[in-house]
């Protein structure tokens, strides 16, 4: 009985062909560079029960992209892309901020409450309500995208571009263009709190578990991959492509909502113009580094998370190496090209020819 794959291929092959290999390799390389060129990079210390260090920084600063990458993985696996995640983050942040402090949109507070407006314990709406409504709104955004792509059959890039442009305007609309400061402490805990490790990491873990459960413990993951690889064969096999795509985009919206909560609580502001700016690109890059093809198909959530870490580690390492802040962007551009080429068929073909294997690849 063929219970599990025979280990007739060497373990080396099994490792290199795993989806996690390349991202982990990239991460290791970057950390190695840090090991040699940045003394004290790996130092970890505890202060007031919190763990500190560059490694923790990488994890913490990378949580936003990690969250986005989880949702984006599913969308890209169906053969699409979601450019609006940054704008959805902004919308989510605006909704949350407005709910905690609606004075800006003209809600009249009784004068005795008004003086507490900047108090760390004050919030107009209870925290659970803020979170639920925000995530609901973000999910609706994802639903909107999913509808455009799956049912109206608009090209994913075009469909999500609409929300990308209009979404920021909507976020501005919600807060009247004002950058609302957030004082409410419990909310701020989401993004900047600590539970030994940064709290946002636990959120990432939770969302990852939800996604993992949805895709690997149900048939959804299999169907997503099938639709991404060959939509017509999937159709003949009875898979409803429309519903699968709708789900993928909706979940992506949800993840963007969570990311918006984390970010806005981290900087304690809802900044409709700048929150999430260019984050969609990071998310897409993370997914691509994680080995998911932009044409769709097989995906690995864990590999995408590692991809997000690779991006964050690159940024953090560059700062540690003393590269000027704004030059980081240029380096990032080069890294993207390098990675994309590495994964592209043409270049892989060239590499394969140059390093001809002994023994067939089956």
């Amino acid at each position, binding site marked *: 009985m063929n219970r599990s794959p025979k280990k007739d291929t060497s373990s080396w092959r099994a490792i290199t062909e795993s989806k996690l290999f390349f991202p982990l390799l990239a991460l290791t390389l970057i950390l190695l560079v840090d090991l040699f060129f940045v003394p004290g990079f790996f130092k970890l210390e505890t202060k007031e029960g919190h763990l500190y260090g560059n490694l923790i920084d990488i994890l913490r600063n990378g949580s936003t992209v990690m969250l986005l990458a989880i949702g984006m993985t599913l969308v890209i696996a169906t053969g699409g*892309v979601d450019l609006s995640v940054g704008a959805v983050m902004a919308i989510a942040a605006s909704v949350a901020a407005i709910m905690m402090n609606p004075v*800006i949109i003209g809600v009249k507070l009784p004068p005795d409450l008004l003086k507490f407006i900047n108090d760390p314990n004050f919030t107009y709406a209870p925290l659970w309500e803020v979170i639920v409504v925000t995530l609901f709104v973000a999910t609706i955004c994802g639903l909107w995208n999913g509808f455009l792509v799956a049912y*109206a*059959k*608009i*090209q994913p*890039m*075009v*469909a999500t*571009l*609409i929300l*990308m*442009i*209009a*979404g*920021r*305007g*909507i976020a*501005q*609309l919600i807060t*009247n*263009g*004002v*950058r*609302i*400061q957030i004082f409410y402490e419990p909310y701020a805990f989401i993004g900047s709190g600590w539970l030994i490790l940064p709290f946002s990491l636990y959120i990432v873990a939770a969302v990852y578990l939800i996604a993992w459960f949805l895709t690997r413990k149900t048939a959804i993951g299999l169907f997503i991959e099938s639709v991404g690889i060959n939509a017509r064969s999937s159709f003949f096999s009875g898979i409803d492509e429309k519903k699968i795509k709708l789900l993928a985009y909706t979940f992506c919206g949800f993840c963007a909502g969570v990311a918006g909560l984390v970010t806005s609580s*981290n*900087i*304690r*502001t809802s*900044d*409709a*113009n*700048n929150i999430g*700016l260019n984050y969609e*690109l990071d998310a*897409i890059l993370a997914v*691509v580094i994680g080995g998911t093809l*932009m044409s769709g198909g097989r995906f690995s959530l864990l590999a995408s998370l590692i991809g997000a870490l690779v991006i964050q580690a690159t940024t953090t390492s560059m700062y540690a190496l003393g590269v*000027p*802040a*704004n*030059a*980081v*962007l*240029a*380096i*990032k*551009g*080069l890294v*993207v*090209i390098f990675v*994309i*080429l590495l994964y*592209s*068929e*043409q*270049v892989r073909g060239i590499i394969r020819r140059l390093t001809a294997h002994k023994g067939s690849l089956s």
Partner: protein
Amino acid sequence: MMSRIGAFIARNRRFVPMSVTAILSVVAYILGAIFYPGMRDPQVFLNLFRTTPFLLISAVGMNLVILTGGIDLSVSGVVALTTVAAAALLRQGWNAWVVMGLMLLMGMALGAIMGAFITYLKVQPFIATLAGMWFARGLCFFISDDAIAIDNPIYCLLGQTKILIPGLSDPKTQTGPFISILVIVALLVLGVATYLAHYTRFGRAIYAIGGNEQSARLMGLPVERTKVAVYTLNGFCSALAGIVLSIYVSSGHGLYARGFELTVIAAVVMGGTMLTGGEGYVFGALFGVLITGVTQTLIQFNGRLSSWWTNIVVGMLTLIFIGVQSLLAAQKGRRAAKAGDAALQAQRRRRLVLYGGVAGLVIIAGVVISLIAGQTRNGGVGNTPTPSTAACQFRPFRDQEAAKLATEGAVLVYERNGGPDCIDELFAIYPDGRVVGDNGVRTIEKQLAPEEVETLLGNIAERGWFTDEIYNTWHTPCGQCFEYHITVKYQGQEKSVTAVDGGTDAPADYWQVVSLINGVIPKFMDVP
């Protein structure tokens, strides 16, 4: 009658999207002129062109790329890089024409490299140009972290020469409606591109590739060469747009043109070009730009809507256009082979008119509503709240203090707020030549000659400070951007105007004024 209109439209279906935009811009402008008397001034109409030459140039180049079925997200990066690089070279004293030529070559080189990646290494255009954008913008900061002012006579000449409209203006007194040289350049680019697209084999190959790349190859067209050429051409246009922008704002900064690529794509889409490639007219870019300009003008004249409403309106318009485009495309797909039936044709024609009509109505309704229902929102002028950024806490504006300074005799009050270190600098210039600056921590002073102050004020007035040309704009500043509040008193007039840098909505001459002022005030050395 209806059937004849229907038949006419059906025969010229391909012109419908572009025409809709053109008609809409005209209608919206007419509506605006009805509601706002100020818009009836022909100069306002000409300003539609004066304030958007770089958008038009970029839209033309992008239109060609999109026609091949590709996309170029790098435009904002290349534009920014061009402004910074040019400013830096000019500061070193290079000749303006040499600098401009060099910038164009640089733009073409970047475009060619990306085109090669896309064509030969089969990288998706989206990703390749995205990386290009990051790379180009990143390069800006290798050159300079700050804005670099441009103080070059040729640049000034190019930016400020007024070209009077014959027939409408008075050549003797040199007054009347005018446009700038930059507008001529933009229109020239539009003309050349239109010629390329419709009268050269290169242009027709572009359309063929966008229609069906595989077929184009089988038909023997030079697909690879054309694709690389198109991206190179767009690189040229981006660089040219950057040159025009730097002339317009007399400076260069790596933060300029953020989000520009989206505006350009929106303009192209509204000009009737489909993002899937192969369909649309280069000339449509003009109308896409016009409608963006009309929207901005309407908002400006409304005076009560913040300029970020432009984004929403543009976004919604793009949405509607893309939606209608996709619907039409899906229609086409569905009818597949059997297109010979006359009844079917008629039905399709009717449906087309219906869609076009509905879309048009929705858009007009939207524009009218946003015109009329512009409530007084706090997001308008003068009530900017105190935000905080991740890096530092913004300091509040010192409105009261500024007003006090003005009443106490200052002829010019200048406040600069924001930036990466959240500074707040308040300057006052007095008629006796005294300049006092206060950044909340310390004060500095400088003594100018009274004539210098007089000249400064005169120059500012000449820029149109006290006319409708200079008006308030505001958008949420980027993390590195500054907000400016300037009050000027001159010859009995007093006017305060606010703006934020990092965007492209403020009136051009505002930035000229800022550089004039920056030229004379002392600097706080400890603030980088």
